[in-house]
């Protein structure tokens, strides 16, 4: 049956309040491993870890089918409400169809336009350079990020985090967390400007 409209985050939130109740332990230790194991068997999926990227079309397509089945059969568990959010297969497919084909990251002459590429595309992936959430000292934060921004093949920045802010731990859900995140943004902007690439995306 056709869907009424594409599911959105508000539908998802509503379902998080009304879905089936379940303990997180049951989800982690029963639902996830048993469903994944059953789908592995259903599609006869066997991987060889000496082959990092599959070449067999049947294996490739069966992995995709198993992933769709996994999402449809399990849904998503909401840890705050202890409920399971379910989708229909049609909603999953509509979500895929609605995903963007083009994303602009950054601005002005430093912007990149990311579009889909295939496994054999001679065009390489875009390069997002940075410490990827690893801790940096306040003293070296800008210099570290400049070292990435000035690399000619780096297209945009993925930042590290302040280990301390004004000597204090940026504890999650505390005022210091906000102070640290704001300082990180200013630090990264300073680094990209010093590298001569002020429009670089983060």
């Amino acid at each position: 049956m056709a869907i009424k409209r594409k599911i959105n985050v508000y539908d998802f939130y509503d379902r998080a309040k009304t879905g089936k109740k379940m303990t997180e332990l049951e989800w982690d230790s029963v639902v996830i491993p048993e469903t994944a194991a059953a789908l592995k068997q259903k599609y006869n999926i066997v991987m060889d870890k000496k082959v990092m990227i599959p070449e067999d079309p049947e294996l490739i397509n069966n992995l995709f089918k198993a992933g769709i089945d996994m999402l449809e059969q399990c849904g998503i568990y909401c840890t705050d409400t202890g409920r399971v959010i379910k989708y229909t297969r049609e909603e999953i497919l509509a979500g895929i169809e609605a995903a963007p084909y083009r994303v602009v990251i950054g601005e002005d002459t430093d912007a990149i336009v990311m579009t889909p590429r295939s496994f054999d595309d001679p065009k390489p992936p875009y390069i997002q350079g940075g410490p990827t959430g690893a801790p940096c000292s306040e003293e070296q934060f800008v210099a570290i990020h400049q070292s990435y921004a000035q690399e000619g093949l780096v297209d945009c920045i993925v930042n590290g985090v302040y280990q301390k802010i004004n000597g204090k731990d940026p504890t999650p859900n505390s005022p210091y967390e906000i102070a640290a995140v704001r300082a990180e943004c200013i630090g990264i902007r300073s680094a990209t400007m010093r590298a001569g690439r002020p429009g670089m995306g983060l």
Partner: protein
Amino acid sequence: MRPCDSHETSQLNELKIDINALTCIAHYINSGNVIMVEQMPIYGGYAGGLEETTIVDVATTINSFVMAHGSWHLDGPIHIRWGITTAREALAVAGHAARAIDSNTHLMLGNQYYTLAGPCTEMCLLETAAQAITDTASGREIVSGVASAKGVRTNFHTGLEARMMAEACHAVAGMELSKVNDVLDRLVALYEKDYKTAPKGKPFDECYDTTAIVPTDEYLEVYDKACATLAGLGLDYFKK
């Protein structure tokens, strides 16, 4: 942050979410922001082994677009024992999941990098190259890193690791897949035997002149040695 910056939200392991993430997504949507949805499935974790973790990775990736309105998904299959994304099993999960999604959808995929060895070591650069090769030849659109030394040591990360990530992508883009798999198998074998003695490397201020912001000669020599190793594996790009 500007709307054109990637605004991150994270799913939880495995196939879980919390209300805070949904609230962030609502804010991002209403602000017209680029949305990057992250999740790092654990090889050897709740899902189980190679095949099970890959199935969960495919499901999780798709969910980033269905639930979270993602512009792109940031993956990062991680090995439960070593806490890295560059282990053979983690690369196999990432390579298979990306290839499965690449062949069946237009979804845009990224991957993030956590190496065992730290900066100024050949092992760190070879780990980085292995993942970049896997990501490029499995159809990913963007690579993100590098959190060297597992991303846990303060200041143990530099721009030179990102240069290797980029150059390895350029080296194999468009290469025949059977050749890529052969190179990968031999490349991972070079470093996977050294996990228990992986060098922690050096912090940023010992890898770079922190005034001029340029790598030290010592680190450039290590970089050149890694390039020579990769050239020896058949990657002509590095014969320069």
